[in-house]
């Protein structure tokens, strides 16, 4: 079946954005192969600035793979090959002259499982600013750490124990610490790969609330398995299936009035 799909030209169903937000990331015909296995069959999508875009779809549909193309984390996987173009503010992400380290400073990432470093809470957040030399003085650094923790709505819970290890926090706190860590390097885009899949509903609600606040300053792309979550936090939704982008559009539109049969089937729980 995938052979047929690969040969037949595939057309994504698109609904333009009524809000008319500027576009932060353009991608055209992005294909990814891991060794022999093709994971993405040409995905083109525009990601709006200062909005939350949700990628939904069943497991193995390529949404995480696509997410990892944007900050070139696929480079760290042996045998992964990426084709097509991805531009961030009209700059080609895969340009050989581009410094991938700088790119990742501009495009932060939050992972599925909270992964705080085995360091103190303070050092976890200060890690990025330190390696990028963002703080001129100790006071500067402290300010960055405190504001990042505040933006990640974690500061009040940890202000008295900044020197304690980050790994000692609860799962939800750890994930917010990871978000604070990402925010600390002042990225323009934050990629979130199923950030709540390892958390309980209360911690999830907090993260969702946080994402909603962060959207004022950051372009956010979130991969999620929870349709409710996508509906709650995102402004635009993209539905992936078997390595294709099936449909993308304003979230309320995709969820209430999908144009594609497969999208309807997925969001109503008929498969996936």
């Amino acid at each position: 079946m995938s052979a047929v799909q690969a040969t037949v030209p595939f057309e994504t169903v698109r609904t333009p954005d009524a809000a008319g937000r500027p576009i932060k990331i353009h991608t055209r015909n992005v294909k990814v192969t891991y060794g022999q296995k093709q994971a993405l069959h040409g995905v083109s999508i525009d990601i709006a600035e200062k909005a939350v875009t949700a990628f939904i779809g069943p497991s193995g549909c390529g949404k995480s793979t696509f997410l990892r193309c944007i900050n070139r984390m696929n480079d760290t996987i042996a045998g992964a090959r990426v084709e097509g173009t991805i531009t961030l503010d009209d700059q080609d992400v895969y340009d050989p002259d581009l410094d991938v380290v700088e790119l990742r400073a501009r495009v932060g990432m939050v992972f599925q499982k909270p992964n705080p470093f085995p360091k103190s809470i303070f050092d976890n957040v200060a890690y990025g600013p330190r390696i990028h030399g963002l703080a001129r003085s100790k006071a500067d650094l402290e300010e960055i750490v405190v504001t990042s923790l505040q933006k990640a709505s974690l500061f009040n819970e940890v202000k008295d124990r900044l020197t304690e290890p980050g790994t000692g926090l609860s799962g939800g706190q750890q994930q917010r610490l990871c978000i604070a860590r990402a925010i600390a390097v002042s990225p323009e885009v934050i990629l979130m790969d199923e950030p709540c899949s390892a958390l309980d509903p209360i911690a999830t609600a907090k993260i969702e609330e946080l994402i909603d606040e962060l959207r004022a300053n950051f372009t956010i792309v979130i991969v999620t398995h929870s349709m409710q979550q996508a509906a709650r936090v995102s402004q635009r939704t993209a539905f992936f299936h078997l390595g294709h982008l099936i449909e993308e559009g304003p979230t309320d539109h995709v969820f209430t009035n999908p144009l594609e049969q497969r999208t309807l089937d997925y969001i109503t729980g008929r498969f996936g």
Partner: protein
Amino acid sequence: MGPLWLLALIAGLSFFGYVLGRWKSVVLSGKGALAARPGYYGAYVLVWTAMPALAILIVLSLAKPLIVDRTVRANLPETVLADTTQLSLQISGVEQVAAGLKLATPDELQNIRIGVVTARSVFARHGLPLGEDVKPYQLVAAGALNVVSDGLDTAIDAAVVAALAFGLIFAFARVRPRLRARNLVENTVLALLIAASSVAILTTVGIVLSLLFQALQFFSMVSPINFYFGTIWDPRFAAAGSTESGQFGFLPLFWGTIYISFFAMLVAVPVGLFSAVYMAEYAGSKVRSIAKPLIEILAGIPTIVYGFFALTTIGPFIRDWLAVPLGLGTSGNNVLTAGLVMGIMIIPYVSSLSDDIITAVPRSLRDGSLALGATRSETMRQVILPAALPGVVGAVLLAVSRAIGETMIVVLAAGVAARASLNPFAEMTTITVKIVNQLTGDLEFTSPQTLVAFALGITLFVITLGLNVLALTIVRKYREQYE
């Protein structure tokens, strides 16, 4: 019957018991459901046949030498018993005579008894030359020894056969359909497993105790203060009749050990760690699959070969190009050579263990750091190595233990001169080398010259044990952060 015959008998009858038990259960299964498969009933009879007999055999075999020894002592005259330093020699003399008496024919025995021929000449004819003439009291004691020993052998045979018969019959009679044979087999397996682990533990305890007793004997002759704080190592030779005891200063040996190990770690830790980092983080799978085994080959080279290498290549090189031009020494045997070569030997210990530890650091930590825009080396230095540090420290301490215990390389590369000096081009030696030194040759385990080896041994043991405990503590203390 000797113990081997008894073992064979036990094995044979146990197997027979297995077949019998299995057969009976198969027959019984015609009348109703069994609680276990037939093999378990066979094993049930096997266990009951073999275990009690084996236990009796082992206990009695262990007890036999003790009883024999008592008999010999009881038959030796007071004057012999009084001379405690010669007692063990006397007892082994009696044992030799006893062995000779067994070889002699009845006629010859009669002749010996009436004094027509000497026992020594008879034994010599049977291929058992003795060092001196057999004294009458030795003949008496040897005769008693043979009587007791033969009696004990018969008793062991009888007890084992009785246990076999009882076990076999008892277990066979008990084979019934409702018998929980599986549980018994399960318990036996558990007992075997426990026994296996006890062997390792008891051996360690035994080794430590024997070291300890000999060392205590040494310390009764040389005061621990003189030993541990003495700065001169000059044990002299344990010449017969000499009362001179020499000086047993531990410090020069300790210093030599530490100094050589220090140079070894100076080589092994950076090289081993860096190669581990390269293997774990940078090398592609192809390079890794070739390079890693190549590094590990280093661990397979016998240490004596490293010794040649030091003696013929590194040693002269260091002497000609460093020591002599600097005016610091003229010997091809020196601390630096030993340290360098030992360091090379230890590289695979450090690199292989560290590689495993670095690879075990969760991938999510790497991703987290890389996604923040850190380079690979920043990720390595600031995230992965700190996370892997406890394990790496453990690996390094294990390597230190290995370095401290190394002997062959030191003998060939650094020499045997006990000396405490800061000059890395001087000859020095280590604790282990001196242990070997003191224990080679014709020895008597009553003089401080030989007993000092046990004192050195137990000290070395305490040092390496301390290092291992330290390594474990460090690993445990920091592991919490890691999870």
